[in-house]
């Protein structure tokens, strides 16, 4: 069973549903070290993406449409970051209606690169990269989907011990310690859903 445009549509629908469910928890996390809107951004972005991908002929078209829809619905920090991530995923998926499941971890690698590129972020700065980077590293090393998820999760958990040096929380100094980065937490949700549907 390949990863098809139909599966891709399902993936974004699942992401929209998950983000709606996590919205208030993500907002609460963002309220501790940011501006309390991360859940809203992720919900609206994924909702827009899910609406945009339906009925498009190729995975590349779908990911590009998702990128644009996410960006236009959200703005904020998450918008450009995930828009770039999804455009990289589009490039990796290519102009085809399906891709072999075995290739799908490559999407995680592409997305992580897109985020790092757009945000100029490195691991350890208490951002979503702290979930995306270890997930991508695991994917590169050929790890299984459960291991990719576990790597992301461990990375996100680790952000609680980090002092933010990038993004809105960077001005908090030591006050950002003790709270997980909301972007890293929502990144885990995305990677989890990918594992469920692509794995």
């Amino acid at each position, binding site marked *: 069973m390949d990863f098809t445009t139909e599966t891709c549509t399902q993936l974004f629908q699942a992401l929209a549903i998950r983000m709606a469910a996590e*919205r*208030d928890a993500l*907002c*609460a996390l963002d*309220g*501790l*070290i*940011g*501006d*309390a*809107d991360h*859940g*809203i*951004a992720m919900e*609206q972005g994924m909702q827009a993406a899910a609406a945009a991908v339906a009925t498009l002929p190729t995975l590349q078209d779908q990911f590009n449409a998702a990128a644009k829809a996410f*960006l*236009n*619905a*959200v*703005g*904020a*920090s*998450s*918008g*450009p*970051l995930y828009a770039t991530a999804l455009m990289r995923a589009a490039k990796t998926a290519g102009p085809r209606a399906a891709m072999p499941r075995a290739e799908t971890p490559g999407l995680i690698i592409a997305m992580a690169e897109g985020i790092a590129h*757009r*945000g100029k972020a490195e691991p350890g700065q208490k951002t979503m990269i702290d979930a995306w980077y270890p997930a991508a590293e695991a994917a590169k090393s050929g790890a299984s989907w459960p291991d990719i998820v576990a790597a992301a999760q461990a990375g996100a958990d680790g952000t609680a011990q980090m002092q933010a040096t*990038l*993004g*809105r*929380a*960077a*001005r*908090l100094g030591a*006050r950002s310690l003790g709270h997980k980065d909301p972007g890293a937490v929502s990144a885990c949700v995305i990677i989890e859903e990918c594992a469920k549907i692509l794995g």
Partner: protein
Amino acid sequence: MAPTQKLINDGNRAVDEMLVGVLAAHPNHLTLAAPRAIVAKHGPRPGKVALVIGGGSGHEPTFLGFVGKGLADAVAVGNVFASPPPQPAVDAALATHGGAGVLFMYGNYAGDVMNFDMASEMLEMEGIEARTVLTTDDIASSSDRLKRRGVAGNVFIFKCAGAAADLMLPLAEVERIARNANARTYTMGVALSACSLPQTRRLNFDLPAGEMEIGMGIHGEPGIRRGPLKSANDVADEIMDAILMEMAAPAGSKVAVLMNSLGSTPLMELYILYARVAERLGQAGLTVHSALVGPYCTSMEMAGASITLMHLDDELTKMLDHPCDCAMFRVG
């Protein structure tokens, strides 16, 4: 927790419904160029640098209230506390540029920088030069001026840039004046309560009664520290101490003052604070050239206040006094 008390219809539609109301209330000032891109009816013209401002919603009258002849030509409107995406910024620029380039101005936030930078790249592809001046007036947000947030000082900084553009100065000059305005503007604030997003209607942070957050950002980002709620004079003194120290203005200098409410702090309290600010300025030998008192840069219903000083020079004085006629702000 019960949802916070708001007069809205649908949290997800709050920004767009607000814009409908804004356009209906100010038909002589504003018009819609594209979704989330509002432009001044008067102002944009051939040969003039287009000043395009923008940022998240929830700070009204910042940003959209400062669009009008003599100030900003257009605004890109984001979701609540969220930078607008690139498209409205591009649309705003395309609708107002007069062949003399575009100046983007907005507060220095990671999200805004990423989105407006994408907008600049998109404009470049259209052959339109866009420069950017970030505002960084919040002295509580970093010891490094370049890393600071832009907060209420936007009002003065945008005003000076808008005047420069209205005077038909070239892009490089408008940019220079905008940078100088930003460099000479200093803000610090305190929050006495949280606010809530229309989508969640939950308080965005927890602030026990009897405490205040010092150096609070305008999105409820935590400030420098928590402390006991102090008297108006003590709060004014703490902020003035910090600003006067940074500003290091020689006696005899002129300043503009913005005594700003973050939302629900009423004029009575602002004027009580201002009384002390004026006293402190007098003691420092500084002259108040002009003062604004009111809700100019808010965080929806947050309680709290900020003080902004702009250390004037002759050029900035002229720019500040230059007439402007916006939907929610007028000078001259």
